[in-house]
C-alpha cells in the first residue's frame, strides 16, 4: 500500500500555496505509507527559466560541502553553478546556453556520477525538483520545509514498502527523464525481466525497486519518440502487475490505473485546481473541495492535464 497525491494549480494565484496544500495531502496519506515520503515540485517556469538546467542531488552526508561541489562543477563546465539547498538535497543549476557543446546538463550529470559516485541525482530538467527521504510524511514535510514551496504543480508519494528496501533511493518519485517523474501505488511482477531488457536498451537503474522499472520503461518509450499518452498505453501491455501511476510533466500531470484497477485513485477538479489522490480524504481539505467535480479514473485509461 502507498499513498499518491498530486495537485495542479489552474489558478495562478494558488501557486505560492501549492507546497502547503500538498504537505497536508501527504500527511493525510501517512497511514497508506509511513516508511518514506517524497515530492516532485514544478516551480512556475517561463521561457527564461527554461534556458537553465537543474539537477536535484542527494547526499547522505549532512555536512556535504555543496558550494565546493558547485565550484568544481562550474570549472568543469566553464560557467557558474548556483546551489539551492533543502535538507539532504541540493538543486544545482546553471545556464544551458553554450556555444558549440553538447547538452550541458548531461555533461554535469555525467561529471557528478564520475567524480562523486556517493551522490545520487534525483531529478534532471529545467523545472523539476525531486525531494524524498525515509520517515513519516509529517517529518519529511518538516525536514524539507515543503510548506514553503511555490509551484504550478506537484506530485507526492508516501511509501509502504512491500518488495524492496526502505532507503532514500528506493523512495518515490522516480525521475523518468527530463522534467518527468513517476509515483506508483501497487506492485509489478515482471520487473526483473523488464529491468534486464531495459538495461540492454541503455537505461540505467539505481535500485532493485519495481517502480523504478516503470519509470525506466517510460523513459525508454519516451526516448523512442513516443508521446506520453502513447508510452503509457504501451505500459498497459508491457507491465504486469498492479498499479496506479501519477506522472509529473513540466506542464502538468497524468494518471493511469492498470486494467484490473485494484489500487484506488480519486480525481477532483474545481475552477482553481485539479487534484489526484489515492483517497478522497487527502483532497477533502482543499479549498472548494465540497463543490469539486469528483470521479474515479477508469481502468486502463490515461488522464492528463497540461501534459502531452
Amino acid at each position: 500500500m502507498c499513498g499518491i497525491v498530486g495537485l495542479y494549480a489552474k489558478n495562478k494565484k494558488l501557486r505560492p500555496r501549492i507546497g502547503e496544500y500538498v504537505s497536508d495531502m501527504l500527511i493525510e496519506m501517512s497511514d497508506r505509507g509511513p516508511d518514506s515520503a517524497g515530492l516532485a515540485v514544478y516551480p512556475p517556469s517561463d521561457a527564461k527559466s527554461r534556458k537553465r538546467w537543474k539537477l536535484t542531488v542527494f547526499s547522505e552526508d549532512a555536512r556535504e560541502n555543496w558550494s565546493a561541489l558547485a565550484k568544481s562543477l562550474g570549472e568543469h563546465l566553464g560557467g557558474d553553478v548556483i546551489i539551492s539547498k533543502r535538507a539532504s538535497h541540493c538543486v544545482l543549476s546553471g545556464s544551458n546556453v553554450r556555444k558549440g557543446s553538447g547538452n550541458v546538463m548531461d555533461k554535469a550529470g555525467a561529471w557528478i556520477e564520475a567524480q562523486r559516485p556517493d551522490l545520487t541525482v534525483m531529478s534532471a530538467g529545467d523545472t523539476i525538483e525531486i525531494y524524498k527521504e525515509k520517515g513519516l510524511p509529517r517529518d519529511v514535510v518538516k525536514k524539507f520545509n515543503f510548506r514553503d514551496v511555490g509551484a504550478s504543480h506537484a506530485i507526492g508519494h508516501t511509501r509502504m514498502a512491500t518488495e524492496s528496501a526502505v532507503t532514500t533511493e528506493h523512495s518515490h518519485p522516480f525521475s523518468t527523464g527530463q522534467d518527468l517523474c513517476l509515483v506508483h501505488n501497487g506492485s509489478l511482477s515482471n520487473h526483473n525481466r523488464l529491468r534486464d531488457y531495459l538495461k540492454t536498451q541503455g537505461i540505467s537503474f539505481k535500485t532493485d525497486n519495481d517502480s523504478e522499472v516503470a519509470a525506466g520503461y517510460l523513459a525508454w518509450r519516451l526516448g523512442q519518440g513516443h508521446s506520453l499518452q502513447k508510452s503509457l498505453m504501451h505500459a498497459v501491455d508491457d507491465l504486469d502487475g498492479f498499479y496506479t501511476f501519477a506522472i509529473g510533466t513540466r506542464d502538468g500531470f497524468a494518471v493511469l490505473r492498470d486494467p484490473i484497477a485494484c489500487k484506488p485513485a480519486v480525481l477532483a477538479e474545481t475552477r482553481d485546481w485539479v487534484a489526484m489522490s489515492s483517497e478522497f480524504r487527502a483532497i477533502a481539505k482543499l479549498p472548494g473541495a465540497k463543490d469539486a467535480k469528483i470521479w474515479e479514473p477508469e481502468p486502463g485509461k490515461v488522464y492528463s492535464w497540461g501534459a502531452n
Partner: protein
Amino acid sequence: MATRKKKTTKKAARKKSGKKVVRKTSSKASSKTSGKKKAKAATRSASGKFDLAKDTTRQLNKALHKPGGTKVFTVTNPGGKHSVAVGAMDDITVNVQGHVGYYCAGMNQSATIDVHGNAGPGVAENMMSGTVRIRGNASQYAGATSHGGMLIIEGDASSRCGISLKGADIIVKGSIGHMSAFMAQAGNLVVCGDAGADLGDSVYEAVIYVGGKVESLGADCVEKPMGKKHVKQLETLLKQAGIKDDASRFKRYGSARKLYNFNIDNAGAY
C-alpha cells in the same frame, strides 16, 4: 520504529487513564463554564449530532452501538474518513452529510444509513440487514459479501460491485464497473445503467438485472429469460429502493451452473 514507539506510548497512556479523550473534553468544558456548556454537550450527544471535523469516528461508532440510545444521528464533515457508521445493530437512522472513505456502513444490521455524498471502497461490506443509501457514486466492491438488507447507489458504482454477494439486494441507479457480482452466491444486483466487463463471473445463485448494456459476461454467466415473476420481483425491488424505472426493459443474468464443482468436461466454461 519511532512511530510504533510513539503509538504504543499513546495507547498505554490511554489505557492508564481509562477513557481519557472523552473525559478530558467533558471535564474541560465543565471547568471553563459550568451548567450551560455542560448541558449543551449533553444535548449534542443526545441529539446524535457528530461533526467529524472535531469528533472521532470511534466516538460516533460507539454512540451508534449504545443499546437503547439515540435513534437519529446526523454526521457532518465526514471528509472521506474510513469506517463511518460501521457495525450498527439497532433500528436507528444515520444521515451522513458529505463524502465518506473506505468501509462506510460495514456490517450494518437493522440501521438505515443515508450518505449524501460519494462512498469509498467497500461500502456496506458484509451488511446483514437494514438499508444503506448512497446519493453519489460508490467506489470498488460496494456491498461485497453482504448477507441481507438493501444497498442503494443513486450514482455509479465502480468495479467489483456485489462481489461474493450472499443475499443482500444492491440497486444501482447508474452504471457499474468490471468484475461485478463475481462469485455472487445469493441476492439480487440491479443495475439501471450499463455493466462493465466480465459481469457475474463464476456466479452461483445470485440474480443480476441490467437495464443498459453489458460489456461482457464472465465465465459461467448467461442471459436468462425474463419471466413475469422476474418483472414482478424487479418492480418490487425498484419500488423498495425508491427508483422509478420500467422493469420490463431489463435483462436477467445468472449462472449456467457448470462451474459449481470442478468437472473436466466443463473446463471450456472458464
